[in-house]
Structure formats: C-alpha cells, structure tokens
C-alpha cells in the first residue's frame, strides 16, 4: 500500500486526524512513506514528535507498535526472547516419551517458544504498521547496532531460526531529543526532520483545535505570549503541550482576557523553573507586586 499520495495529501489526512502540519513535516512524512525509509525526528521536548507517529497511524488506519527506549534497553526487550520456562517444560515432558534429543532440540527453537518484542513484532505483522521507536537518544550506543539491521533491510536475524524479513514494510518513526548525537550509521539510513516550535498562526490553530471553547481573541493573546517567552533565554522554553495546558487552565479559571495579572497568576503552567519565571517577569515587565 502507499501511505500517502503526495505531500498535500499527507497534510490533509494528518490534519483530518487533528495533527496540523507545516510544509516540511508534510513533505518529509510523505517521503518516508513513498521511499519506505525510516524517519528520524529531532527537536525540543513537546513539539509533537511522538504525536506525528500516532497521527500517521490514525490517518492511514495502521496499527502502532511502540518501542520506548531507555538506558539499559537490550536485545531481549527490543527484538525477541526465548521463553525458557516453556522450553524447559517441553524438555521435561519429552523425557518420558521415546523422542530423541535431536528431535526435542529442533522442537524447542520454533515459533511456539519465541516471545516477540516490538521490533520483531513490527517486522512480522502483515497488516499495515507504524513502528515508533521513541526517544532513541536515551539508549546505549550498542542498541543502535541492533537497530541498523531493522532500519536498512527490515529484517531480523535469529540464530536458531534464520532471518525474518518484513512481509510488509512498516512506517518507521524514530524520535530523539538530541541529548546525544546519534551515530552516523543510523542517521544515514533515515530521512531527517527537525521539528521546531510552530509559527504563531499554526500554533493558534493547534491550540484552538485542541481546546474547544477557547475564544479566538484569548488564543491569539496566548500564542503571542508563548512566542515571546520562547524568545527569552530560558532553561526550558514552553512547548506546544504547555500552550495547550495553559489554554485549558484559562478555560478552567474562566479567564477571558490574558492581561498581566492573569499571566502572572498562571505562569507556573508554562514555566517550570524559578529562574525562568523571574526572567519572564523581569523581561515582560509584569507587575509582581500585584500578585
């Protein structure tokens, strides 16, 4: 199957599921599908990297298989594992019967005793699949080696069984916060997309579509304020998720005008460092005394 027929088709269908794209995102997503290459998305936290993978799954009706990476992730958690207990039972069960050891030996390394983990699962699935490898930069460098075979040839080699090749290539999305430089080998196999904070217009659309009941005027104020906060030198700039949170907060507090007092009272929703809040108050000349 083809995932998307053109960049604009990608933009439309992702938009229909509630994920609003810009030109770069739509083009790259289309290309990842058309060229059947993995897509590596980098960018600050909370700009919608993981969300894009979910949106692709929703828009194309594919199932999402997710591998969450963490420090200490190994082969057994990422690829496959043998079900030792079951294998042991099988061996014990065969002791009474007159089966030879060779037969038993061949018997215990079959599909029945294989526990598939996300990577192998995604490769073996026959239905359309989106494989999300989340926060790749959290893993150790060795795990990248594991990924290489999957990313370039869409196959996994199991010594006892042979090589399993994808019947149907999954749509692979890797996300990274760029806390660590990924190896050249991984990058070479992927298309690359850097997701940034959206421009004001697009962010307004996102906030309005995510938070029903938000007035246009407040949304405009909010997006302008968030854009200004991002221009300051902050430790943690507010993400899209935080803009949406802020909008929800305003609805909950029934604030219909985002003036200085309102900003002051709710600043904690978007800025999560004391020094960032102080900086914002100082730069934006908010009146702290009025608090």
């Amino acid at each position, binding site marked *: 199957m083809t995932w998307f027929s*053109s*960049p604009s088709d990608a933009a439309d269908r992702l938009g229909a599921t509630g994920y609003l794209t810009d*030109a*770069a995102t739509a*083009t*790259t997503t289309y*290309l990842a599908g*058309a*060229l059947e*290459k993995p897509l*590596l998305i*980098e*960018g600050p936290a909370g700009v919608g990297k993981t969300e894009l993978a979910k949106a692709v799954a929703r828009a194309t009706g594919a199932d999402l298989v997710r591998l969450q990476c963490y*420090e200490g992730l190994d082969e057994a958690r990422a690829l496959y594992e043998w079900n030792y207990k079951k294998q042991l039972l099988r061996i014990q069960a065969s002791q009474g019967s007159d089966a030879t050891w060779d037969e038993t030996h061949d018997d215990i390394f079959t599909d029945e005793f294989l526990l598939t983990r996300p990577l192998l699962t995604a490769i073996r699935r026959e239905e359309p699949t989106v494989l999300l490898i989340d926060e790749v930069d959290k893993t*150790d*460098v060795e795990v990248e080696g594991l990924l290489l075979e999957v990313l370039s040839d869409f196959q996994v080699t199991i010594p006892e069984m042979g090589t399993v090749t994808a019947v149907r290539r999954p749509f692979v999305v890797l996300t990274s916060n*760029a*806390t*660590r*430089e990924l190896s*050249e080998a991984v*990058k*070479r*196999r*992927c*298309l*690359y*997309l*850097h997701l940034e904070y959206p421009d004001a217009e697009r962010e307004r659309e996102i906030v309005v579509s995510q938070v029903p009941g938000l007035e246009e005027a407040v949304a405009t104020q909010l997006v*302008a304020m968030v854009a200004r906060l991002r221009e300051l*030198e902050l*430790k943690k700039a507010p993400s899209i998720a935080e803009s949406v949170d802020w909008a929800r907060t305003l609805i909950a507090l029934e604030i219909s005008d985002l003036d200085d007092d309102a900003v002051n009272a709710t600043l904690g929703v978007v800025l999560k*460092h*004391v*020094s960032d809040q*102080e*900086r914002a108050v100082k730069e934006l000349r908010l009146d702290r005394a009025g608090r």
Partner: protein
Amino acid sequence: MPTPDPPDEARSGLLDRHIAFLEALRAAGLPVSLAEDLDAVAVLTALPWDDRAVVREGYAAAVVKRHAQRPTFDALFDLYFPPLVGNGADRLGADEAGPEDSEGGDADAAAGGPQDGDVPGARDNAEALRDFRERLEAAMTAGDEQQLARLAAEAVGRFGAMPGRGPGLSSWSAYTALQRVAPGEIVDRLVQGLLAEGRGDEEARRAAAQRVGGFTRRVEADARRRIGEEKGAEHVARTALRPSIDRLDFLQMRRTDLEQMRREIYPLARRLATRLTQEHHAQRRGPLDFRRTVRASVSTGGVPLTTHHKPKRPHRSELVVLCDVSGSVANFAQFTLLLVFALREQFTKVRAFTFIDHVHEVTHHFKPGADVVDVMADLAASASHAALWGRTNYGRAIEKFAEQHADAIGPRTSLLVLGDARSNYSDLALTTLAELAGQCRHAWWLNPEHRRHWDTGDSAASRYADVVPMVECRNLTQLSELVHDLL
C-alpha cells in the same frame, strides 16, 4: 570508457548541478555520504516539482542530518537552485505562477551565464529611491512576503550594482544597496503604522525590527545569488558563506552570533553531561577483585567462570579556570566559563578567575540556577576589576595569582588557562607558571587563535606551550571535545 558521454543536449544539467550542490555541501562541512546522495535523487523523483518549498524540504530531509547545519544548507540551496534568474523582475511580475518556471530555469542559470545588467528603467536616482522606499514601507507594513522578495531583488539590481570594466567583472553589493535604501530609517514610520493597527508599543517595535532584519537578509541572499550567477555558485560557496554556529570561530563572531551561541550553551552542556554519564556507566567495571574471584571459583572446581570486580570509586576533579578577558578574547573566555559552569556537577569544585593584568575571582557569579543573561552582564562588569593598567600582561597576572590564590591549586586540581598568549612583550613569568602547573594534576592552555597565528607578533604561544600543553580551541565543536577529554 566503455560508453561515450551522451551528447550535451541530452543532458539536462540537473544531475551536474545536483552533484555540484552536494560537493559544495561537503566542502561546507556536511558529511553527505553516497547513500544520502542516492536518497536525494530518489526524493527528487518522488516529489512533485511545482513547489520550490517542497523540493527544498525533501532535499533537506535526505542530506541534512543535524539541525545546526540547516542554515548552511539553506544558503547553498538558494545559491545552486536560485528562486529566480537574472533580474527576474519581469518574470515574477508577469506571471504569479513563477516557481515552476524558475525551477525549470535552474539549468539555464548554469548554462546561460550572466544576464545583461542594464534592464530598462533600472536606474538609480533620487526619485527612484524615494519611490522605492515608499513601496518598501507599504510592503513591510502589510507584511507582504512575496512583494518583499520582489523588492529585495529590485534593491540589489537597482541600487547595489557595481558595474565592472569587462564582461564577468561587474558585481553586486548588498552593502551598497542597503546603504542606499537604508531600511533602518523606515523603522520609526513602520512602528507608527503598526501602532495604528492597534498593536502594543513594544510589540510593534519588535515586529518592525524583525521585518527590517528579514529584508536585510533577503537582500544579502539576493546579492549572493547574483554573484553566484556571474562567477559560478562554487565561487560564492567558497568565499561568501559563513560557517554554521558550532564551527564559527570565537574571534570572528558578530553580535547576532553571540546571542545564538548563548542559546547553544545549555543544550550543549546537557548533551555533554549525558554523554559523560553514559560513558562513565559503560566503564563502570573497576579493577579485578582477585580474592572474590578465587573464592567464587571454588564452587566451579577452581575454574574462575565468573570474575568479580571492585566497585569503581568515582573520582571527581577540582577545576581552576584562569581566563584572559581582555577585549580580543573576551567572547571566547565567557563561553568557556559558561560551559564549564554548566558542567559544574561533573566536578567537585570549580573556581574561576579572570585577568587582564590583575587577577579577580568570579566564582560567586555562577550561582546554581542563575540566569545566563545576568551572569554574562556581571562578568562583563567584573572585567574592569581584572585590569589595573588596561593592557594584557600575562606575567603580572600569573604572579598575582600565585601570590593571592595559591590555595586554589592542589594535587587534585586541573588548571585551565584560557587566552591567546599575547602579552604585549612583557615578562612572561614562565617559572611561576611552571611551578603552578607542577602542583596540580593536569594543566591545559586553550588558545582561541588558529595554530598558524601562534608566535606571530607579540604572541608567546610556544614559550608557554613548553610549560603547559597548549591546544587550539577556536569553536564550539573543539571546545566541547576538549571539555569532554578533560573529564
């Protein structure tokens, strides 16, 4: 060669241009592999060609794998696949569906060579200037991107032309064009216009400055494009492109670069810290615990099947940074200090001193969670304490340091000296520095100058290098590598 080259008219020129483009990217420091080259070709065949932005993004997805390299890519893309050819005004004005034409025109740009510069009506006089500025102001107030692009091209063509004596010698200058048009003077009226639209005062000012800045960049890009057309894109790519921020020399930074750089510092420190922790984890196994291994081997008949290791003692070093903050190297010193302090958790203790001809301790400026902007301001203010006479004097500074802050140096200390070793021909205090270096565990000297400038003029680089190992540290990449090795 088994097959002769196809005749010239059979070649579209696109492939040649594509390869020249990739060559330029590689020359600019992007590691574009053959696999990515092929990907880019696949991308171009898979994409519709009617939108330049789409082609650009597709290309970028295939060949750019690091966000810091994106500005370099964009500048080169504009150079090799220019949005318009020659003066371009007629074409852009005549049909709005320009992009298709200009894409197709890429090959012509390469083959056709320079277009004649004297387009009818493109004359520079006071009246034309007044008229142009009015149109510019209107476009900026309205924020009309297309019109602004057109005006930028016009500004370069009309006011930035530098006619040459022979063919191929004429050139264009963004500087001249901007001097004539002086978009900075429009700012005030622009602000008035935006205020009338009902925007806040500060907001209007920021928006106005942004638009003028955007226009300036466009004019610069357009001048590059025209020069590229005349002299070949390769020429411009070689001479007129600034390197990406992490490869930009500390000593050649402009103000805008400084701001961008400051934003880079914390992410960079975070990346470094993560990498360090991971590497420390990887080598967590300490030396072999012989007794435990032998004892454990009893149960396996004396065969040491599993080895046991002593836990590794975390060793953390103290760091003393001594940096020259005289005008020429101030930027470099500030960034290095910021980076070192951002990595504070990796050391037991960090102390920092600044000097010009007198030493001044600045450790207290770096409070945990302090604000980067404040710290930079404090540092700049404290630079005055570091100078008594005002001329860099390494010898006196080192003597003073040994005299007043000798307690900072100990057997667990790493000493880091930052500076260009240009000491105005004064005494170098080599013996004192050697003593200091002898008392600490490691000593390094980071020099922000290119190695080929060492020992020129009043630089005493190699004489200091004999005492303390000296390394060249000119940009963020080198700096982060150094700090990583240091730990």
